């Protein structure tokens, strides 16, 4: 019997091994850095917590199962996960990467990878011809993020995978915005799935964490080598918190997405709002592609107001959401990408990507939806008075 993903989220990490954990329903927290060995010749499954820890193993097994992969890896942060994956490349390799990538990934690719002789080309991934044109003989990796951050651009995953396969390049995909509930990149041929688990998977704005899943054994071994060598693993208590929080990912994400659609429609109809970026709106240029590869439009949307002063007045008038970086928490989070998630990007690069001075990103939380709409209504009314 194969369980549906909602069931796997609740049971994933814990279904087996009752006998080894005294029947406990939950995975125990192994705050043990080292493990006693029974024999000089043969070591047990665990020897040192960087290399493997039973609590972390339960989490890694769970995310692998959820993504339909065969091996999972837990990292200290989303960026630790992203950078560990890039570290399987070597000097001379080239990366084709979506231009509206998360600001932290942008910084890593532009400031750190060149030190190792790894080059990159940014491309508008909504244009498959442009992706194809950017691939060179030394291209080893095509890196996707869909929906992308913050303008929710949609990449045709199947299309990019086909290009990569023709060139013998790997594909990585940052699946943070969709979670395995609503987008299964491995099933579409992607080689490595990456999550900032800080977001919807944990979902309580409490821990930072990253997860990676692979399906190919050799690739899994390469990522494990980096994970163990660099050591940016997730701590045991955070592994436990993440396992527990993932049990409510389905109920949280689905409710937040439902309300996100309502807010997107509300903003779309509002005269002060210039653009709404949400892949659930038929007006979104990636609407059809997204619908063909994902089963939800997600809980994050962005929208642009005419200018900085109006955006500032709006932010100051909003009462319910926290004004902060990050997303995916139970609390609604309002962000200003130009100075937050994409502050690491040069102004001209930001402008190219539609990250204007009036752009705001909203991560829908679990507050009452009418309260959120009322809050938007009053804040937009105040912002409307700004000349």
């Amino acid at each position, binding site marked *: 019997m194969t369980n549906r993903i909602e069931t796997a989220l609740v049971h994933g990490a814990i279904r087996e091994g*009752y006998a080894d954990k005294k029947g406990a329903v939950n995975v125990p927290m192994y705050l043990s*850095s080292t493990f006693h060995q029974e024999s000089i010749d043969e070591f047990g499954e665990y020897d040192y917590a960087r290399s493997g820890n039973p609590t972390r193993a339960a989490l890694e097994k769970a995310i692998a199962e959820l993504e339909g992969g065969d091996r999972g890896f837990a990292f200290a942060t989303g960026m630790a996960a992203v950078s560990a994956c890039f570290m399987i490349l070597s000097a001379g390799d080239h990366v084709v990467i979506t231009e509206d990538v998360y600001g932290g990934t942008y910084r890593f690719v532009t400031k750190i990878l060149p030190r190792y002789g790894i080059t990159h080309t940014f491309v508008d991934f909504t244009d498959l011809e442009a992706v194809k044109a950017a691939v060179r003989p030394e291209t080893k990796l095509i890196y996707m993020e869909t929906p992308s951050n913050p303008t929710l651009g949609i990449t045709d995953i199947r299309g990019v995978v086909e290009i990569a396969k023709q060139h013998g390049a790997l594909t990585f995909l940052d699946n943070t915005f969709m979670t395995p509930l609503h987008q299964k990149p491995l099933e579409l041929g992607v080689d490595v799935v990456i999550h900032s688990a800080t977001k919807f998977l944990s979902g309580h704005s409490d821990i930072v964490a990253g997860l990676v899943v692979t399906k190919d054994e050799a690739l899994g071994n390469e990522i494990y080598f980096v994970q163990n060598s660099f050591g940016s693993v997730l701590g045991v208590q955070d592994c436990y918190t993440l396992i527990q929080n993932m049990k409510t990912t389905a109920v949280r994400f689905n409710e937040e997405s439902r309300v996100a659609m309502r807010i997107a429609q509300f903003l779309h109809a509002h005269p002060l709002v210039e653009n709404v970026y949400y892949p659930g709106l038929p007006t979104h240029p990636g609407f059809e592609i997204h619908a063909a590869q994902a089963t939800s439009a997600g809980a994050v949307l962005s929208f642009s107001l005419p200018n900085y002063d109006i955006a500032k007045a709006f932010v100051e008038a909003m009462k319910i959401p926290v004004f902060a970086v990050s997303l995916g928490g139970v609390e609604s989070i309002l962000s200003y990408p130009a100075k937050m998630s994409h502050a690491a990007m040069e102004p001209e690069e930001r402008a190219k990507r539609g990250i204007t001075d009036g752009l705001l990103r909203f991560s829908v939380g679990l507050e009452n939806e009418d309260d959120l709409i009322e809050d938007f209504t009053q804040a937009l009314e105040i912002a409307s008075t700004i000349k």
Partner: protein
Amino acid sequence: MSQRSIETKLVQLGNLSDAKTGAINPPIYMSTAYQHTGIGESTGYDYTRTKNPTRTILEQGIAELENGDAGFACSSGMAAVQLVMSLFKPNDELIVPEDLYGGTYRLFKTFAENYNIKPVYNPFTNVEEVESLINENTKALFIETPTNPLMQEIDLVTYAELAEKHNILLIVDNTFYTPYFQRPLELGAHIVLHSATKYIGGHNDVLAGLVVAKGAELCEKLGYYHNGIGMVLSPMDSWLLIRGLKTLHLRLKQHDANAKKVAQYLADEPLVTDVLYTGKGGMLSFRVKDASMVNPFLKGIKLITFAESLGGVESFITYPATQTHADMPYEERVARGVCDRLLRFSVGIEEAEDLIADLTQVFDSLRGEFA
């Protein structure tokens, strides 16, 4: 192999408890429920209030350290006192030293008023006098030694013999000395309890209580009430106590060495009239020359923290009159020696010279006005 020393037992607590992984530190079981493989087939764990694998390691550990038969981890030191008090019925009487922790005093008062379980107070300086208080309703001697905050040692062997003679329980609060310095069960006591918040936790981070008893019947009763009332310690806090215990001996050696130096310094200080120190452990009390010195003294200390509680790595000074003994009526408090000039010092494990330097600067600042 010979019987392991207490230092080794402390350090090794929880090691080799998880055969499957070999984990050196026992895992933290944050699981409320435990799967049964069939009807009547339990792993020994069913529901975390009744038994939790992490708590079990702590409970077995403290039982072994105190040389008892069973241990019970409680959510606070007062919860441990309450667990022990569940053994008594209306009209039962307990003989208790006058110099008692204020929280215990308050709880005993409640038990007397609500359940007619009565504490009978005595200074415990004369065993015949204590014996004369024993009647057919007397069920236990409940003592703290050394006492808090007056640091009087009560001879456990003497009172164990008295309890034996009258077939009553000897219950000892061993918070100040811990099993490292004193093991009452080996001297004839029946029940030992701890505010494990103090030296056993040792880092001023966990609130916890421990009870250890000897004898199958007593242990079974305590186990019944522990589960029935439910004042159990959480798995996370149980783990923190296990970690704390691993350095108990090192910490206590340093608390003890520092307290000896501080006691000597205070004895030589003219603004101090009395130093109450047993010569063992990290706790001492002292009286300053004048009650009006207390507030400027507490405001003037810089390194030492003015705070309630004790037994942590950081030095604390407490003012019993308004803190630990605030619930005791003034006349009664003063009659017991907890006067307004009394300060209690939980000497931490900082460098002793730094503690003495802090005391020196504050006494020097007060010398003009009070000398």
